[in-house]
């Protein structure tokens, strides 16, 4: 059976072609409204992938992925309000999060905190940010010309423009294409990391940190590296989210935000990269469907799904379906079985 996350080039190629195809074809065939919805789903898929890097690939249990997503959004919002141009703010959204993760990760991993404590610290971090962001309604809290505006959030934030052409704001359709391309890029980044030599070291650290140490690998540093990359991607997703929404409020730091990301990942399948993408799209669509003329509370559905999947389908939809197909294939197809003793 193939090792999880190992690059299977055919699958990677198929997924890439699918995403790219969607970016090119859908604007020609779908309505603006559907495109706008797909844009935000794709943003969330990028966010799901960021946790895939941190948790799925790196085994770092981050309960506060929303912290980096939200900070990315705020960084972009503050920077673009001040600069009036989006190129540098996008870079900042990524870099600042990498830096924040570096500091936080240094503190956690060099202190050799166990998984559970990493979970607590990241959770605390997002709660602190949530509380802090909520308490900035005093006009005193402003960075340059951007007021943070507390609980109400920052409204009317400039979208992304063509690099260095402040006048050329992206249209919603162009934003859709950009977001899909970003999703493709992040997906390929994940695949590249997983397939690289360092990616193998990361996988080794996740599976058995003691053995990795005994091979001479500095597991703290490996975890730190993967944490920084995952957080930077989450920051990038935050910036794309603000581009879509034109708005950012402390909600982005909320517990339910972090919970959502984990639910997408678990339902889709945390051992793969396509799984979280599928999970993000499917569950987002489900939640927005529930809001139109339904009496069922979205929390009941999300919470129920999470419990069912953790207990009954712990690997998530995609790996389960894939393995099911593979075993069917072994049973009926010409492929030879391989049992090892």
């Amino acid at each position, binding site marked *: 059976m193939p090792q999880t996350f190992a690059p299977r080039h055919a699958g990677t190629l198929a997924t890439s072609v699918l995403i790219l195809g969607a970016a090119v074809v859908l*604007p*020609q*065939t*779908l*309505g*603006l*409204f*559907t495109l*706008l*919805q797909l844009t*935000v789903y794709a943003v969330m898929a990028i966010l799901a992938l960021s946790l895939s890097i941190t948790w799925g690939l790196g085994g770092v249990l981050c309960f506060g992925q929303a912290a980096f997503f939200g900070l990315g959004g705020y960084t972009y919002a503050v920077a673009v309000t001040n600069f009036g141009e989006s190129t540098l703010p996008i870079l900042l959204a990524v870099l600042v999060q990498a830096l924040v993760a570096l500091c936080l990760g240094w503190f956690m991993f060099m202190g050799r905190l166990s998984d559970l404590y990493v979970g607590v610290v990241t959770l605390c971090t997002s709660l602190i940010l949530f*509380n802090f962001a*909520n*308490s900035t*309604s*005093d*006009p005193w809290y402003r960075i340059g010309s951007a007021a943070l*505006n*507390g*609980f*109400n*959030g920052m*409204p*009317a934030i400039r979208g992304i423009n063509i690099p260095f052409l402040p006048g050329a704001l992206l*249209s*919603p*359709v*162009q934003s859709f294409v950009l977001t899909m391309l970003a999703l493709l890029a992040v997906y390929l980044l994940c695949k590249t990391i997983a397939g690289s030599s360092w990616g193998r070291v990361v996988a080794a650290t996740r599976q058995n940190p003691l053995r990795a140490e005994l091979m001479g690998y500095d597991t703290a540093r490996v975890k730190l590296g993967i944490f920084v990359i995952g957080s930077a991607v989450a920051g990038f997703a935050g910036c794309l989210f603000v581009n*879509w*929404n*034109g*708005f950012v*409020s402390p*909600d982005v730091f909320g517990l339910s935000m972090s919970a959502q990301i984990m639910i997408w990942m678990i339902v889709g399948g945390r051992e793969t990269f396509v799984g979280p993408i599928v999970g993000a799209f499917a569950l987002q669509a489900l*939640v*927005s469907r*529930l*809001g*139109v*003329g*339904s*009496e069922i*509370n*979205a*929390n009941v559905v999300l919470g129920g799904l999470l419990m069912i999947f953790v207990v009954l389908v712990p690997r998530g939809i995609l790996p389960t379906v894939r393995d099911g197909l593979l075993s069917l294939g072994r049973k009926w197809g010409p492929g030879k079985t391989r049992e090892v003793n």
Partner: protein
Amino acid sequence: MTDTNTTTKARGSTGLSRRRFTSLLLASGVSAPAILRASGARATDSVKMAALLDLSGGLDIYGRPMLMAMEMAVEEINATGGLNGKPLELITYDTQSNMQLYAQYAQQAALQDQVDLVHGGITSSSREVIRPILNRYNTLYLYSTQYEGGVCDRNTFCTGTTPAMTSKSPIPYTIDMWGPKFYSIGADYNAPRIMSDWSRTFGEQAGGEQVANDFFPLNVTEFGALITKIQQARPDFVCSALIGAAHLGFYRQWAAAGMLSEIPIFSFTFGSGNEHMMLPPEESEGIITPCSYFQEIDSALNRDWVSRYHARYGDDAPYQNNVSIGGYEGTWLWATAVRNAGTAEREAVIEAMEAGTSWTGPGGTLTMNAANHHSSRDIFFGRCTGGAWEPFHTWENQQPSDTDGRCDLIANPGQNVQFGAE
């Protein structure tokens, strides 16, 4: 929760053919959203109003009664001949107290369902999410709840109370009644901060003094330290803009500390979340609130309305407060403008509104102010007595002076900002 047998229609997967049509249209010119409003895409058999309200999640205590109020207005409008011969159709979206869904549904209402009016948004955050989207896709927006004031946007009409209305006369009145020294507390966000600022401004004009000004995040439930601080400061009254379920803790702990009978409370917000019904009388007795509507207002129009409301939704229908009744008032004010204009077309309705559309309902008369797109209205002073409101004073025709003077949409139709406090 509500079962409606009228034109109210929850939006499922209908409208497919129109979506296809839109797709075709888009295939030709995708990057210009304005094209979407081309008249061919517009269904002409009914006038459509979208309700974007939190019907689940933390804010549904506001959203659900507000939807009932809207439904009542829609039913009455249809019963009186609809809008210029067409029925008014209400399309409901449950935003689930989730800002992302506000954006998604605003896009859906404007682009896919192509409504004539989007009515809703409860918090200021939700309004600020919706407003730019509806501006971009040229869909008229009506915001009908109490809020912090200052929105200046030609595409948006606000019919709720703003802080200046509830402070300008009520604060001096209270100072006369109880004394000059007041301690301000509030939820930590814009609206309560602005309320606090106005209370200082108008309080000082009346010779009062705001001795402190403390704000609390919405999830704070423990107020022991605050109560001690207030006891130290010994003000003549407490001026509260606390909001939400967690903050009920303050009133409970205040009463438990024996303070309710010692230092009286003036509140901008008590009652907007039906606090008077959630707390037992011994914890709320004597709290006073200036606000645009109480179910207890003693007028023929209101008595009639309340009885119709209960006839429609039953005896245990939720209390309609100044927030939720906005759904009724706002819908009617807009419908009046549509009738005056003879069409639901956006430009015509804006012009009709700016011509000073006025409508009288259970909470008195609302008149649209042309320059700032806010309505002036009556303010009632209520005292919490035995878990119900006892209106004891009325100020008529209070002006939205938060926004007035700074915002002139007649002179500058392109103006689109939200002014902060002064």
